[in-house]
């Protein structure tokens, strides 16, 4: 059974879409990730045009991060003030990102740029997950427990415009979070990701936020960033496909909840290592597409008139 996507202007198998959303949702629920970094390339692999894949992924991430934020919010693990400051940067970043995106579409280089960005992102994510999980597995075998420093004092504490973030127990300048938000905004708009993978380490290591508040705050921030990106794409690139988004959201929300349940029952590290390998596999596929001489060196795109 297939469904015609009105914006992508092609039909796809409905079960393929539902299983894609379900699997990505499952992984995101299990690991507390947005899943956009897998969703966008997988959509491109099944033949969805790059611009539609990016814009629609952003819309899907709104749903999955709302689901995730609620849980953290109830437990009081969201630093709204920090989220707000990050959003100031993200607001301008995503406007710039959508502008860059539409320029790249116009000059015909969007596919290449997206491929290179995704290759870099996925390789980074995959390798760091693989290293981290193998370390944990090794430590578990040696029965070692890893102690972490709670608080880092670095250059972020020496800049002007310092503000007190009570929830995170921080007194730092607003400049670093604004810059981080700005960068995440650009990446979110051009790649169709929430950016948690970059945001979370940045919040821990650059801002020195407590780990417990990081996930909730980043999810909270991602809701707004991807909401903004969705609106910006809908109005400038016209690439948000509501039908595609509907099926992906439906299946990924269910998948995410199942993933959360599964995460409590399964041992994390082995599955994390497996996810790392999947991520690296996707990265390799993208790299091969860039490096191996293609069968067809010409590609055709219809120039659509925007009314």
């Amino acid at each position, binding site marked *: 059974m*297939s*469904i*015609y996507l*009105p*914006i992508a*202007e*092609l*039909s796809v198998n409905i079960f393929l879409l539902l299983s894609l959303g379900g699997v990505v949702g499952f992984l995101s629920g299990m690991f507390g990730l947005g899943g956009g970094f897998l969703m966008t390339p997988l959509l491109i692999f099944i033949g969805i045009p790059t611009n539609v894949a990016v814009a629609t992924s952003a*819309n*899907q991430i*709104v*749903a*999955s*991060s*709302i*689901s*995730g934020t*609620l*849980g953290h919010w109830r437990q009081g693990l969201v630093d709204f003030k920090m989220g707000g400051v990050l959003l100031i940067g993200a607001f301008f970043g995503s406007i710039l990102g959508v502008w860059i995106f539409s320029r790249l579409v116009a000059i*015909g*280089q969007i*596919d*290449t740029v997206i491929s290179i960005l995704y290759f870099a992102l996925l390789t980074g994510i995959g390798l760091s997950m693989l290293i981290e999980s193998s370390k944990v597995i090794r430590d578990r075998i040696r029965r070692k427990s890893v102690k972490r420093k709670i608080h880092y004092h670095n250059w972020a504490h020496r800049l002007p415009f310092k503000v007190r973030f009570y929830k995170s127990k921080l007194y730092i300048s607003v400049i670093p979070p604004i810059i981080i938000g700005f960068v995440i905004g650009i990446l979110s708009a051009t790649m169709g990701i929430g950016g948690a993978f970059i945001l979370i380490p940045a919040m821990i290591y650059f801002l020195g936020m407590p780990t417990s508040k990081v996930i909730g705050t980043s999810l909270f921030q991602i809701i707004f960033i991807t*909401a903004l990106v*969705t*609106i*910006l*794409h*809908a*109005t400038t690139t*016209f690439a*948000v496909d*509501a*039908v595609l*988004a*509907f099926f992906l*959201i*439906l299946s990924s*929300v*269910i998948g*995410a*909840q199942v993933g*959360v*349940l599964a995460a409590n029952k399964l041992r994390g590290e082995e599955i994390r290592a497996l996810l790392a390998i999947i991520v690296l596999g996707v990265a390799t596929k993208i790299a091969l597409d*860039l*490096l*191996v*001489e*293609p069968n*067809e*060196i*010409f*590609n*055709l*795109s*219809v*120039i659509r008139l*925007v*009314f």
Partner: protein
Amino acid sequence: MIKQLIILFYFLTGMLTPTISFALVIGSDQEEIYIDANFSGEELLVFGAFYSDPSQSRDSKSDILIEVVGPPEDVALRKKDSYFGFWLNSKSVIFRDVPGFYYLSSTSELTDEFLINNQIGLLEKKKSEMIDWSLLTTDWGSIINEKEKEEFYNALIRTKQNDSLYKQVSDEIEIIDGNLFRSYIDIPNTVPVGEYTVNLHLIIDNQVSQEYSYNFMVTRVGIEEAIYSFSKNYPFFYGLISLIIAIIIGWSGAEIFKRFRRI
């Protein structure tokens, strides 16, 4: 499934014009193809009949040629080149008003010469094998040499063929009982919307003896049309509604499963 039957009589008899010895009747099972939520491509049936005049000599050879031309569109064709081992888009050409869909089918293999003489086909090649570029509207950009232009032209046809949007065949017309014919034409799910023209040629002894054309439409209908036009006319509200749907499903998903977990 025959939604609508249109049979058009082009010539009933050859009596009024004695030089014309064949009569042509043609129809199609649909005069409109609807793109709805379930659309996954369709098969268009084109059928007809031709009656021969008994006075015509028996050894004259007759052929049928069916051409389907989709609505014009502008396309950008980009060529990849290797830069430091990476395959990146480099040169590009914009072709204007090329058919979004093209299908040519005949009962026997047609020579290039025949197609050129009768102005059939995507782009007529002159006898010297050179393409007549004046028939194409293009933005060549930095491409000036003739060989490269031809490479791009061939790539245009090839990439469209790979997407099943261009096709030229000589074995898809079925002849039944000597003077009835029918042909199923694959309309893939990626076809552009708009007006399509079906041209039918009856060829006798390598001469076009009869021609007939009619149009059909490919249109978006129902929810597909509603979503498409809403996204184009009210992009902000379209984005907003997409968001609201995401919020509702995301929120309710979390609530529903929260209850599950308590049990």
